[in-house]
């Protein structure tokens, strides 16, 4: 039993996350519909098209699987797994409350960051193996973008790690008497922007821009193999949104309600933010994308680290000065940015 237990837990978690993903898909259809003054799906399953994602999954299952003639068959088949397996592994490191978690890793934060680097490797593998110039170019663009945004993501997390002096996610949440978003507004902002780029979601999805380029690295993928890439992205969304909740929003802390409820309230708050920013912000230009990543997010993440470290070491009760100075700098930076960009 003890030997089989981890497998059962893993299976249960995967199915749980999958059912949430089905809900995400439906909610996203509805939200983007409403924002564009449409209804979104209405017919499938009668009540507000609730069965639309299930129909989509059935469609994926039914679709013919085509491996192009000049593709590298082996790598073409392996690539979706390289994208999918690491994001499942990440689930082992994410706690939901201090009672409900799989394992409390010593290095949970670093574990998640390290495994997320498989995402762009899988894209490069898929893009190259397709034997198509455009998919390879799409893979390169996607990989270049993920590379640029992985750094600010890691550095934004470093600020939180410094505040709580541990890499364990449970430890980080337990240290948060004040939510880290108050102490680390710059870090939070950087994290939220870099997260959307990491997930290849709409303001930052120019590598797979479905309306302009056909689909970037996944041009040649069809049916369930394509769905696996998508599934990997949704699992990544799950992981990164949970990370945002745990690192910056105090995880399961909150009054009255039990911890697990608070966790999911915050989690769905982040999800709503992602869904709204997807439909309400226009896609950034490639040059803006690179400038944002390297010239704004990366330096601000470094500034965040420097401020945090200095105040923690030099000021005995650093919470209030840290929050105030970060906030002031954030406002000043946003104001200056508006002036400069105008």
């Amino acid at each position, binding site marked *: 039993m003890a030997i089989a237990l981890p497998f059962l837990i893993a299976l249960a978690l995967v199915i749980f996350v999958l059912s949430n993903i089905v809900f995400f898909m439906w909610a996203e259809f509805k939200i983007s519909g409403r924002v564009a003054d449409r209804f979104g799906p209405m017919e499938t399953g009668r009540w507000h098209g609730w069965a639309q994602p299930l129909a989509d999954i059935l469609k994926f299952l039914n679709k013919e699987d085509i491996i192009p003639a000049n593709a*590298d068959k*082996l790598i073409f088949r392996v690539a979706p797994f390289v994208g999918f397996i690491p994001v499942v592994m990440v689930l082992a490191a994410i706690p939901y409350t201090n009672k409900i978690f799989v394992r409390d890793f*010593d290095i949970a934060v670093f574990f998640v960051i390290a495994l997320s*680097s*498989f995402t762009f*490797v899988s894209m490069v593998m898929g893009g190259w193996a397709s034997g198509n110039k455009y998919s390879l170019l799409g893979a390169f663009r996607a990989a270049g973008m993920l*590379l640029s945004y992985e750094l600010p993501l890691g550095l934004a997390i470093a600020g939180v790690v410094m505040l709580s002096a541990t890499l364990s996610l449970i430890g980080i949440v337990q240290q948060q008497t004040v939510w880290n978003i108050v102490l680390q507004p710059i870090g939070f902002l950087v994290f939220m922007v870099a997260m959307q780029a990491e997930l290849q979601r709409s303001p930052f999805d120019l590598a797979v821009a479905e309306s302009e380029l056909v689909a970037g690295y996944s041009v040649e993928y069809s049916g369930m193999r394509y769905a696996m890439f998508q599934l990997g992205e949704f699992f990544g969304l799950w992981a990164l949104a949970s990370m945002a909740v745990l690192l910056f929003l105090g995880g399961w802390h909150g009054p009255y309600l039990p911890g697990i409820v608070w966790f999911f309230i915050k989690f769905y708050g982040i999800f709503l933010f992602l869904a709204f920013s997807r439909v309400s912000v226009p896609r950034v230009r490639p040059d803006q994308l690179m400038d944002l990543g390297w010239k704004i997010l990366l330096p601000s993440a470094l500034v965040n680290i420097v401020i945090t470290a200095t105040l923690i070491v030099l000021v005995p009760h650093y919470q209030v000065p840290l929050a105030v100075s970060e906030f002031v700098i954030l406002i000043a930076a946003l104001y200056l940015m508006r002036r400069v960009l105008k």
Partner: protein
Amino acid sequence: MSGQLLAFWALSFVILSGALYIVMTKNIMHAVFMHLLTMSMIAAVYGLLHADFMAAMQVLIYAGAVTAMVVFALMLTKSQSRPDGAGIAVDNQQRGASFLTAAGFLAVVIYVLVPQKWAVHEAAPVVKSDVAAMGAIIFKSYILPFEVISVILLAALIGVIVLARKED
């Protein structure tokens, strides 16, 4: 056989056959992706040695960044040998001599190493994967190498920019 020993055998098998594949295959791209697998498995070996942090770092740097960099570099050098191995051979003529050299080296190493008695710590290996402990040691006793590493990285960065930007 204990679980750890079993894991060790499995990992060694994958690592060694992966490495053999890298040095034998005609398909350069397959070699790069096999490199990814081998490096991940080496990370697992670090895990077996109770070094969580180093395992994650191995994945982050070798499996992620280095693989991406090698793929990009490969795409820049339009090699005479096509990725599927057609065209000019990827090996040179000295395969036999190389094999003999390598085998000789291995024989000497095994001859020296096998009878060796190591001063293995009692009850080793101790579970000591704490990141904080590691940080404390680095920032207490290894400050100079730490700062020198930053200069080396800077030198590499500037070097690559100077070397790679010749075209325009």
